[in-house]
Structures are given as structure tokens and as C-alpha cells.
């Protein structure tokens, strides 16, 4: 969130990431059209992983061990509530007026009755949460991802989503808190809280991934596309899928396989809104 103010620190970290240099960059790095900066990205990725292992993850583990679950929930809800104004504005920018109104109501209800967002009363009242950020808004407007980018500290992103993060940092309620120590405390606890929620999943990804970098990159890109289409993206097909398909009906033990290319037919998903 401190992207603008911490610019110098970020530059220093980028240099550090370069110096880290120990990242294993495969020889064909950068050949994926979505990821021309792969060599650079892998080095930043390694740097983030190293930093996480030494600093953030241990903090998150202590956080989980020390704080009772209701307190953790309270903090998670509170941090989520800080995002509501941004959700509302982005819904508005995406032309989703009723969602925007709902987000404003959520913020009003949870900040007051919900005690500064500690309790998500609004959801129980039937006001659904919509997570929208400026990167998604740009996507809805038809702006492409641009190259995949791993940011120091922030993790996986794209050029488009990095612009989004910059704009978001201004939309975030925390940005407008003038007391520096309060603001920094919120930022710090928020980061540790976020990391704590990822502990289980991080372990799972480390086991499931043959190459963690690729797994996270592809997951991120899929996830973001899904968000831009609000959970219902049109089906994507790659050229080599068509070549692979005919074999499906020839493969042994699958007498029930339908004719080649049968699943190439138009998907049941609606047309893209873009």
C-alpha cells in the first residue's frame, strides 16, 4: 500500500533481488508470450520467498499461535472493511450501480453496527461482498494484462494490475490516516494477518507444484481473468488443444469417448462482456 511513499525502498529491494541472483532460471525462460520478463521475475520471486521464510512466515505463525480465532476473524473483517470504498468505486466505474450502492451500505453498516468492521453484519443481512479492484476495472474496460510481473514484497502481478495497485493505494482507507504510527501499525498487522491466512495453502502449493513459480503465475493469471469476468469467463482454447483432441477418441479403454473435438462446441458460458 505504501507504493508511492516507499519508492526508494522498493528500488533498493529490486537491486537486492538482482543481487540475490541465485534463482534457478530455466534456459527457455521468457519464451512464454505472457511472461517475457521471466528471468527477472524468477529472481524477484526467489527474493520474496527468501524474505518470507526469514521474516513474514515466522511472524504469521506467531500471530496464529498467540491470537484467539475470534480476534483473527475480527481483524480479517476489519481489514476487508477498509476496502469497501474501493469496491464501491470500482463497481461504479464498471457500470455496476446496484453493487456499488450495496458496497456503500456494507461499509456504513459494518463500520457502525459492525464495530469498525470487526463483525461482517452486512453479509448476514444479505448484502453480498464484491471484491473489485482497479486492476479488474481496467480489465473490464478492455485493457490487457501486459507482461506478468513479480513485484518485490507484493508478489505476483501484471503490468496492468501494478497500475491498479498504485491507484488502489490511494483508494484504501488506510492511506488517509494521518497518524504515521497508527497507519504503519495497521499496515504491518494487515500484512501479517494476510500471510497467516495463507499458511495452509502455501504448504499445499509447495507440494502440489512441480515448479512453484509457474504454478503461482498460471494460477494468478487464471484467477485474475476469472475476476474480470466476475466468476464466469468464456472458455479459452489453445491451438494445440485441437491437435491433441483427435487422440482422445483413439486412446485405448475409452470406448465411450465422443467424436473428436466434441468439446470444442460453443461453451454454455455467456458471451464476454468486454
Amino acid at each position, binding site marked *: 500500500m505504501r507504493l508511492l511513499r516507499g519508492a526508494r525502498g522498493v528500488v533498493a529491494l529490486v537491486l537486492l533481488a538482482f543481487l540475490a541472483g541465485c534463482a534457478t532460471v530455466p534456459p527457455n525462460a521468457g519464451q512464454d508470450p505472457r511472461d517475457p520478463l521471466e528471468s527477472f521475475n524468477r529472481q524477484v520471486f526467489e527474493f520474496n520467498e527468501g524474505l518470507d521464510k526469514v521474516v513474514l512466515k515466522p511472524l504469521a505463525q506467531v500471530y496464529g499461535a498467540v491470537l484467539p480465532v475470534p480476534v483473527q476473524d475480527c481483524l480479517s473483517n476489519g481489514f476487508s472493511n477498509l476496502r469497501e470504498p474501493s469496491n464501491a468505486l470500482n463497481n461504479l466505474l464498471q457500470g455496476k450501480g446496484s453493487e456499488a450502492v450495496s458496497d456503500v451500505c456494507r461499509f456504513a453498516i459494518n463500520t457502525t453496527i459492525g464495530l469498525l468492521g470487526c463483525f461482517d453484519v452486512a453479509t448476514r443481512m444479505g448484502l453480498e461482498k464484491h*471484491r473489485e479492484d482497479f*486492476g479488474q476495472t481496467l480489465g473490464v474496460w478492455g485493457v490487457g494484462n501486459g507482461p506478468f510481473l513479480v513485484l518485490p514484497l507484493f508478489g505476483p502481478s501484471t503490468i496492468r494490475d501494478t497500475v491498479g495497485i498504485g491507484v488502489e493505494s490511494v483508494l484504501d482507507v488506510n492511506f488517509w490516516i494521518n497518524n504515521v504510527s497508527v497507519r504503519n501499525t495497521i499496515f504491518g498487522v494487515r500484512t501479517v494477518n494476510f500471510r497467516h491466512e495463507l499458511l495452509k495453502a502455501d504448504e499445499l*502449493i509447495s507440494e502440489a507444484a512441480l515448479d512453484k513459480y509457474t504454478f503461482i503465475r498460471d494460477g494468478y493469471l487464471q484467477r485474475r481473468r476469472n475476476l474480470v469476468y466476475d466468476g464466469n469467463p468464456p472458455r479459452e482454447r489453445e491451438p494445440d488443444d485441437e491437435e491433441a483432441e483427435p487422440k482422445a477418441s483413439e486412446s485405448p479403454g*475409452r470406448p465411450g469417448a465422443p467424436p473428436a473435438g466434441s468439446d470444442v462446441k460453443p461453451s454454455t458460458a455467456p458471451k464476454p462482456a468486454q
Partner: protein
Amino acid sequence: MSLQNLIQSLALGAALLAAGAASAQTPAAAAAAPSSSAVPSASAAPDALVRDLSNEVLATIKADKALASGDVNRVQKLIDEKILPYVDFQKMTQLAVGRGWRQATPEQRAALTREFRTLLVRTYSGALSQVTDHQVQLRPFRAQPADTDVLVRTSVVASRGDPIQLDYRLEKTDAGWKIYDVNILGVWLVENYKTQFASQINAGGVDGLIKTLTDRNRQLEQGKKA
């Protein structure tokens, strides 16, 4: 922080898949789920199949402590015995391997399918402890009666945390509908392995990929024992 929900829920969603169909039709599940007496049937409509399967799975996980704690052998056994009627692991593997599938011999294809399945079961079995009071809700289903390939969309809700998008792709076979891909919060399982598999095959051929998968599985097995 957009990855938050994704990664957080990957564990849970994956658990539902892996354990998933696994628990269908076990006596424990039937006993534990008096309200959902429907037994999943591959001959049923695809959305009904997914709904019944999901309910059975959740009921079983809630009722079976060993399963909920991620006992790998328990999960493995359940999947081996029960998941096959509902999940087409071979098609799942074939799509993930992509172009390389054509070069593969029948033996290599069998090995790929076996090792990929083992990896999925092994890595995701640990996530079962995430399941608490979750419930599955079907989202609107659009398909024509003649369709042989459909998308079933669900939402998993619990008292804690945001709803989790969990979707399935099913194909109609002679043996009924079979799941061949799953989507957790927008991330399709097959798609997320494609690039990794392709680069393994580029580097070391089909055998290279088989070896990588086998080594990883052995490594995970030893890690869990240790």
C-alpha cells in the same frame, strides 16, 4: 492482496475435489447424511450428480475424523475405491499433458495418469482438515439435453470466510457423466498444470515428466512419514 482468497481457498476447494467423489456411497456417509438420502449416480443429470457427490463428501469428512485429519492412506483408499466411477483421471491427465500425450506409449500414459492422480491425492489430502460447516450450493445450470460436455457451477459457503467458487467440467460417457476438470476460484486444475508438464516434457521427454512426478510422490511420502 488479490491472491488472498485464491490461495486460502485452494486448500479447501482442492480438498473437496480430492476427497470429493471419494466418499460417495460409503455406509458412513449414508449414515451421516440422513437429510441427503440421494446416492450419487453417474447416470443422473450432471448437476444432480455434482450436488449429491458434494453433499456426500462433506458429510463423510465431517463424520470421519481420520479422513478430516488428512490420513493419506485413508484418503487414498477411499479415492481408489470410490472416485473412479465419477472422475475421469485419464482425460484429466491427457488434457494436462496436452501435445505430449500423442508421443506417449500406452504404458507411459498409464504411468502418467497413475502418478498425477497420486500427486493430487497426496498433496490435497492434508487440506481436508479445513472443512468445517461447509455447504455446497448449485449455481444456475445451463445446458441442452443433447450436450455431452457441461459446466456445473457451485458455491461453497461456511460460517467463516467468503463463499468459494467451485466449478466442474463433466463429460458424458457410456458409463455416465464423469468429472474431468475442476475450477477453484477461477483456477482450472488442468490448465494450471499444462505449462509445468510441457516444460518437463521439453526438457526430458515423457519419461522425464513421469520421473519428476514419481520422484515428487516418493519425496512427499517420505516427508509425511518422517
